[in-house]
């Protein structure tokens, strides 16, 4: 398979892109990119400016990163590395961070501000055996919008493809 080396690049640009636009808009624009031509404009369904918080955001907490409700996990899907010998941004020993990641925007309930989070898989051993399995499907899109589909194994390009767990790396403020 093609070796993916867009890692630093993609996070960097995604961060800049997402700096003052909503995560939804980023997805929309990146999604459109994948379609070479013609770029048919898709009119989003009308919605208010100040959108209601999602179910995840309403229930988020900042104390326990071993729980699915930890605020950074608004877009995570899989097993939490915090339960597997890793940390919020640390892969467990013997595994390798995936070469690519998706950037989500999560609200920290302590300051009600939005932050950019890179979801990065750790690849290597079999799936980590733990109770800490989470699936936050906020804006998890189908496979034809792979940039936000949580079903694809993105350990591609590494010497091992086996998925082990997922981290949520804080990139910075989204406001």
């Amino acid at each position, binding site marked *: 398979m093609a070796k993916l080396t867009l890692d630093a690049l993609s996070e960097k640009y995604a961060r800049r892109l997402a700096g003052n636009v909503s995560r939804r808009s980023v997805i929309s624009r990146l999604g459109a990119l*994948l379609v070479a031509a013609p770029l048919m404009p*898709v009119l989003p369904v009308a*919605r208010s400016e100040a959108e209601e918080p999602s179910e995840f955001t309403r229930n988020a907490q900042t104390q326990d990163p071993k729980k699915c409700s930890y605020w950074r996990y608004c877009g995570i899907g899989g097993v939490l590395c915090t339960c597997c010998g890793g940390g919020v941004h640390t892969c467990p020993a013997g595994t390798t961070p995936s070469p690519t990641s998706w950037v989500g925007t999560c609200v920290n309930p302590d300051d009600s501000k939005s932050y950019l989070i890179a979801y990065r898989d750790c690849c290597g051993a079999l799936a980590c055996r733990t109770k800490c399995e989470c699936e936050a499907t906020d804006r998890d899109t189908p*496979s*034809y919008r792979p940039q936000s589909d949580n079903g694809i194994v993105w350990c591609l390009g590494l010497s091992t493809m086996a998925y082990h767990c997922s981290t949520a790396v804080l990139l910075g403020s989204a406001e």
Partner: protein
Amino acid sequence: MNHYRSRQTQQVTRRRGAWFCVTAVFAAAIAAAATPAAPPPEVSDVAVLPPSNTHRVWLVELYSGQMQVVDGDSGDLLGSVYSSSLSNFASGRSTNRIYVAESVWSKGNRGTRQDMVTVYDGTTLKLLTEIPLPGRVYMAPLTHNFAVSANGARGYVYNMQPAASVIVTDLATNRVLRSVDIPGCALAFPWGDNGFSSLCGNGSLATVSLESPHPAIKRSEVFFDAENDPVFDESPSNRSTGRTFFISYSGVVHPAVLGATPALEAPWSLQQAAGLQPASVQNGTLAWRPGGRLPFAVHGPSGRLYVLMHAGEPWSHKKEGTELWVADSKERRIVRRMTLPTAVTAIAVSQDAQPLLYLVDVKETLTILDAMTLEEKKKVEQVRGVVPYVPDL
């Protein structure tokens, strides 16, 4: 959790020489004790599957691999087909062949990656051959990651590395014919014998006819809002008729007849068809919405559409169904709503005149219903992480 168990078999000796020694010692005594009235010894043999019928169902383990061929009437397991993890299964015409699109590493979690379509005989379940592939998408398996044409002659393998393409294989000669780029699109919904359509990230459909040696891609107009209300990957489709229902996360049904020129019909709302308001895509709005691993099944002859529904907010499309809705897709009307005692993750329905509906629930029980009356006909427990497929669909 692991069902491998040790077992009792025996290698009876290490050396022929030793046997002859034993024989010499005991032969006389044994000969005298022969019982002429004893029944003739049984012989070890190997089963073949009974002739296929319309009530055959496949139970596919999406993650760990292996597929079980089950008789829908009795609930009996007829046989199993191995696969590596994250594989896709597809059937030849009338299930005469079983195809597995799989990715195997030469040392388990490491080594050389090998992508292939592995071909099994549909009756003996014997491995016939392997068709090496130049790639294959590696993901939680979706039905339309791998599909076979209606006549069973061609296989379509969705690939993403990360450019999107469909690898077309000839299943008569067991080789790759060509790879067709489908930029910005994904999956392969076969229609008839000579083409497939793919769903695209801008809300359109890409259609590839394989009649010509250089297949062209035709793109439809944008017909759904891929950003705010995408249609399910697991939208149900029939490879012979091309009849497809692209169904969105909020419950909008976009009927289509796939073909060289797909016919896209006017959309309708599942909720409106039940006399309710259409579901909103606004955060925080509660509504009945479709969801699950395989939330849809269509009985072609009657046009009945079965949908797993749950009460949820937007982006709850993976939540299991707590109600089963039965729609008359021609009249666009919900004709039945049934509460599910245990939440259901995946459904399938047979295509005959006495159809069976297969439901797998979160407690890993397969329940088989009469698809017309919704009466329970059979329960099979501990089916363990599978989804049901009706082959040759």
